[in-house]
């Protein structure tokens, strides 16, 4: 995907060559080396035993339950979550659950209406790459991942809430 930011050793960088490609359900997969396909399509492929031939990324829509994909998380190099609008916050919870409850270790990608001012929140919830909306400058968006980032509550990036870290320090 173009216009994408990733985390390299925790530091945000613009990815120069990202192999992944979002593929619609009605688009053929021929010749695409690293397709991201919908959860429904992936399930259909898995039932026919075809899912092993390629390394697929899976796209979960905001209505999809992350628990449904939990048994296969070890085999998936990338899961993409969708922000149909940046004001739709369901993917924050999905990301958090994939990381903390189901232990997903692969790349977790934000797709859809992905904008600079929400990137820091996404990182807190466990996203590790960010496909910035195509009409926006990725280098501008990168600024959204630098600067002040303290929160009180725990998050994926801060597994302990501030009050526990605070007492450990004093």
């Amino acid at each position, binding site marked *: 995907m173009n216009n994408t930011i990733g985390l390299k050793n925790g530091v945000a960088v613009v990815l120069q060559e990202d192999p992944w490609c979002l593929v619609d359900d009605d688009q053929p997969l021929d010749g695409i080396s690293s397709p991201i396909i919908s959860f429904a399509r992936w399930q259909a492929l898995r039932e026919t035993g075809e899912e092993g031939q390629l390394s697929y990324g899976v796209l979960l829509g905001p209505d999809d339950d992350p628990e449904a994909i939990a048994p296969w998380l070890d085999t998936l190099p990338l899961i993409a979550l969708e922000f149909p609008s940046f*004001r739709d916050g369901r993917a924050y919870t999905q990301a958090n659950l994939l990381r903390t409850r189901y232990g997903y270790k692969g790349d977790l990608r934000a797709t859809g209406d992905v904008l600079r001012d929400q990137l820091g929140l*996404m990182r807190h919830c466990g996203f590790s790459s960010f496909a910035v909306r195509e009409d926006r400058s990725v280098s501008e968006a990168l600024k959204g991942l630098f*600067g002040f980032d303290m929160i009180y509550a725990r998050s994926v990036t801060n597994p302990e809430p501030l009050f526990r870290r605070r007492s450990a320090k004093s």
Partner: protein
Amino acid sequence: MYRYDQYDHALVQARVAQFRDQVARRLSGELSEEEFLPLRLQNGVYLQRHAYMLRVAIPYGTLSSNQLRALARIAEDYDRDYGHFTTRQNIQFNWIELEQVPDILQLLADHEMHAIQTSGNCVRNITTEAFAGVAGDELIDPRPLAEILRQWSTVNPEFLFLPRKFKIAISSSEMDRAAIRAHDVGLYLYKGENGEMLLRVMVGGGLGRTPILNEMIREALPWQHLLTYVEAVLRVYNRYGRRDNKYKARIKILVKALGIEAFAQEVEREWEQIRDGVAELTSEEYTRVAQNFQAPDYERIDAIDPDFGAWLARDPAFSVWVQNNTRPHKVSGYSSVILSTKPGASAPPGDVTAEQMRVVADLAEKFGFGEIRVAHEQNLVLPDVRKRDLYALWKALRAQNLATPNIGLLTDVISCPGGDYCSLASTRSLPVAKAIQERFDDLDFLHDLGELSLNISGCVNACGHHHIGNIGILGVDKNGEEFFQITIGGAQGKDSSIGKVIGPALRAEEVPEAIGRLLSVYLSYREVEERFVDTVRRIGIAPFKEGVYQRETARVEASA
């Protein structure tokens, strides 16, 4: 009072810088209005009819004298010399330039205040009652847990884009003075058999188009679980709350759709996954925060002060004010004093001038410990006043028009700003409030009526909480004309109820007369010392309906 530590300071300061950058990007066109909208809302900036409005949080309603002076400065330097206190312990400035908002936020941050999440689809300002820590009937001081919730919910990354706004209130007194049953989450804090702190968790309340009181999903939750339990509620809501229709998006609609039991089961299932982990509160953290709310150095004084008693006997106006505008304090010899922001027709409910703010800040230092509270009813409170100082304080407040002895009476009107300011409002609520206050300005009559709440909302969004007023007035637009619908029998507190509509909506000019007829019915049916709301509950709405509309009908027939 809570004092910011290094982390709190760092967060609000960084937030100012972040918003300054966002405003600059909006002004340069880099950010579209659509993209900027939620960013500004989460920093308290609304676009109203004539200008931007800034809503500043006053967490759990507590201000220091210096903080109130900072608010006065904002009113003077950036607004038209006044501010408006709301029903949820915020203050709104109505005439703000967007370009100046970062400077205002800077001033707030320098005084340990902010406007974070006072708007938008996120967890709003955490509220409690104005007498927290001092009320005679308080069980446990709710402020430490309110502050802990404030911190937890501030920029909590998972819950900033919820389906809709989310309001949490906590109360811990015999009476509930924080309207907790009208909140998305209402928390009632009490003591268990062994003195341990427990919470009753109630979910799904809210007014607006679909007024509902919340229902209990958990009794006797040990306080250590507060954050994980609220997290579980919010996660269920964030996942399953409706997003297709703004008017069906509050958690109350989800609770109603699932049923309270199924909803509670969902929450419990989620909570089982996160309970007893690192997110649970510790005694150490509770103590750290609670230390900020230690009682001030009260003097040891007798409950009865001879001078105070003498003034009560000598000055009947003072005596009436004491009777109406002071509340029992848990410490002998002290009272809490309510400053009425409803002097009558001369100022809209909740409006306080910069000059008044400065005087109140000084009085709080002179006659208290430099602390001021903001009440749900849009009034101010000086929580710790020695009884022997009450007379001097009363005189000073009278000079500022802040001593109208009408707390809890008909003219202690709760009202939203309405169509004079708000772009959502379909009608102007303030002129109606004014007309009612003008018509019923006889204090003897008001005192004879006794406890009676009157709430006015300029539209169905119900910011004036009309559903839970003993008398509620709702503005509705009919083909471009303003009409007002009257409900009776609503109540807040422990015996909360939603008011019932008495009949067709009336024109603005007919409202005071209709209220007069409602009161006549009440007075003719009232049993000794019976409150208005109790009479309504006893005899039902039919006699009131008849009282208000029969003459109306007769007049129409006569003119036909």
